[in-house]
């Protein structure tokens, strides 16, 4: 299997401070890679760096094409959808408008309509709240909206920053089932950042462990799950 996303020596900066110190990782075509790490390890930063939201050095290749230094909107137009840290809701717009924006770059009207059906099927609560201001949704509902908005792009690669954040345990189970289905049925590749390491390791095929902006461990999820330190600090057994 080839890699759909691949970075080499990726560095990222907030002003003068460096937050990523040369990161190499990949997401396989049709695969799910997860990034684990403590708070402040640089997981969110990695997703931002991939999408060109902050200054970077080093190379990022998407689908065989270098995207390092490209504008965020151009990267998105290649089929990279992000569910950002903090959900990125357009709070003053309605739920429906948020979803329409997700499909902003698409030209296939019929397909977009189908996808409205699809996300409303996946998240029925969004259908109920269709004309409501998105800012008035509960945190969990906004999280669903963020995922639905990303799906509306029909992405080839999804970058998910803690999609389970703020969701009830049952809903989290459901969400991960949905993600698994999207990945399996539509072949959407995913880069998943998750606090819930055991769930993430269930879903993903490969995992990286980040510490202060460096990958300290990587491998298939099976290998990672067996690692003593990961078990102690992230899986809790």
């Amino acid at each position, binding site marked *: 299997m080839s890699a759909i996303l691949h970075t080499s020596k990726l560095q990222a900066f907030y002003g003068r401070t460096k937050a990523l110190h040369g990161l190499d990782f990949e997401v396989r075509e049709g695969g799910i890679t997860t990034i684990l790490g403590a708070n402040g390890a640089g997981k969110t930063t990695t997703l931002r760096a991939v*999408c060109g*939201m902050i200054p970077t050095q080093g190379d990022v290749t998407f689908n065989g094409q270098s995207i390092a230094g490209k*504008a*965020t*909107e151009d990267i*998105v*137009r290649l089929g990279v*959808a*992000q569910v*950002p840290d903090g959900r*990125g*809701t*357009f*709070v*003053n*717009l309605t739920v429906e*408008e948020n979803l*329409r*924006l*997700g499909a*902003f*770059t698409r030209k296939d009207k019929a397909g977009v309509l189908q996808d409205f059906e699809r996300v409303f099927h996946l998240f029925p609560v969004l259908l109920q709240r269709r004309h409501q201001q998105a800012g008035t949704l509960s945190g969990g509902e906004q999280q669903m909206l963020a995922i639905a*908005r990303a799906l509306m*792009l029909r992405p080839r690669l999804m970058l998910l920053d803690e999609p389970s954040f703020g969701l009830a345990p049952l809903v989290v189970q459901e969400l991960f089932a949905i993600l698994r289905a999207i990945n399996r049925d539509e072949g959407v590749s995913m880069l998943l950042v998750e606090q819930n390491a055991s769930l993430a390791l269930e879903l993903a095929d490969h995992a990286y462990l980040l510490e202060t902006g460096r990958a300290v461990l990587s491998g298939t999820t099976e290998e990672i799950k067996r690692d003593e330190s990961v078990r102690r600090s992230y899986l809790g057994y």
Partner: protein
Amino acid sequence: MEILVQQIVAGLATGGIYASLALALVMIYQATELVNFAQGEMAMFSTYIAWSLMNVGLPYWAAFFLTIAISLAGGILIQRGIIRLFEKAPILSVVIVFIGLLLIFQSTAGWIFTYLIKPFPSPFPQAAVTLGTVQFGSHDLGALGVTIVVLVLLYVFFRYTSLGLAMRAAAQNPVSSRLVGIRVGWMLALGWGLAAAVGAVAGMMVAHKVFLDPLMMGGILLYAFAAALFGGITSPGGAVVGGLTVGVLENLVGAFVPFVGHELKLTVALVLIIGVLLIKPSGLFGKAVVTRV
């Protein structure tokens, strides 16, 4: 009673012009949290363009639409060429840039067209329109109609087209907008273009009443500010209501309060601004701005 109705309609007509200009201010404010102090001068310059087009023989409406197109392009160019360079600049630097623009437009207009006032035609018939027992100026009614059309078009554009939606999104949340593939920079530029186009319409409508000269927009811009603040600078609908209210108030006060007359109309606007701001600092329909600690 008849005079009252007449004055109200005349007030609505000028109010519509304030509303358009206020809307132009609100559009740029929503995207950048800046008030474009050069908006009035840009509108004045557009009006001179229309005047020149008619001078070379174009019929009114051809000149009208061509001017709108030119203003749209001009607004986009100004944002892309100048304002964009100051995206990260402190707010006061940007204010100085606006002042610079204002001076450029005013001075260039004076240079090309001289400071002599010029009559500006109206596309509407000379004769007054009589409804029931009340007479209305047909330019007033026409201008009001044009303003309403502009406002409806803008409403439809922002509400129902995906470009309009993208512009609203870009103004509210640029980061998320980029993440759905919106070219935020161009949306800002387009906002400037639309503001300039709407301002151009306002300029062409008002020039018939106040005559065309490089300084014609000074007072009108103040009324537009008052209107925008009155309605709440964050609310397009508020800007429209604000504009109409200011227009009507101005006319009624001018007509019925003897000591005010024509000279103190600006002062009335001042009192209105401060009064509204004291009672409701975020305007009638505006959202209170939450300041960060």
